[in-house]
């Protein structure tokens, strides 16, 4: 799934990144717990989360996760936006709950990590 489809399906706004980015997302992981995110081995996934702080961006940087979907109407802070730009993370904001965003993406072919 490409970024513009991901954004459209979750009614998300792309805060950092190019809607025409060639990246293809195959899997997703939903968590507010960064400790769990750091145990993942899969790459090329979207992290669906309601946690909006700088450590979220640092965590995805270390875990090699290229795309983050902020849910529950959470907004990225200016610091998060700047760090995401510097690292090259694609950051989106969706008004959906984590459950709804996960469900919609699953229904459209995104696979779970496990």
């Amino acid at each position, binding site marked *: 799934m490409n970024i513009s489809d991901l954004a459209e399906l979750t009614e998300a706004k792309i805060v950092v990144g190019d809607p025409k980015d060639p990246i293809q997302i195959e899997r997703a992981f939903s968590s507010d717990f960064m400790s*769990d995110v750091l145990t993942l081995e899969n790459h090329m996934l979207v992290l669906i989360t309601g946690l909006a702080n700088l*450590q979220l961006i640092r965590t995805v*940087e*270390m875990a090699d996760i290229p795309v983050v979907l902020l849910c529950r109407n959470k907004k990225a802070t200016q610091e998060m936006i700047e760090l995401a730009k510097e690292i090259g993370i694609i950051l989106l904001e969706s008004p959906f709950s984590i459950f709804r965003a996960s469900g919609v993406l699953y229904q459209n072919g995104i696979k779970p990590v496990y």
Partner: protein
Amino acid sequence: MELKFDIVGGDFNLAGRASSKIKKVLKQLGIDPKIIKRIVVAVYEAEVNVVAHSVGGRLFAQINSSEINVRVVDDGPGITNIEQAMTVGFSTASKEVREMGFGAGMGLPNIKKNTDEMTIESELEKGTSLSFTNRF
């Protein structure tokens, strides 16, 4: 090459600076991305541990052509029971730390999982010293 970083206890906004810098250096050296990920996840977990559980400390990374050695020392308060701290799911993290997305009791076990060698020593009221090695 030796890199040194100060880690400030309690300041989550600074956690990740050392791992981010080490990631950049390892990328420049052309190390396999899968190995880089293992290393930086371990370094980041160690940084977060110092921020979340100690009054502060230092991180030293020595990199040569075949391996990286990382040593993280803090100035206390030390770990009461290391065996317990190594158990998946055991955590003494505060509510504030959990609200930051950490404190699931995964840190030390995840460092062990992602490194080739790991040792940890701790003395109550003195501090903790964690060392690990990853070969390229």
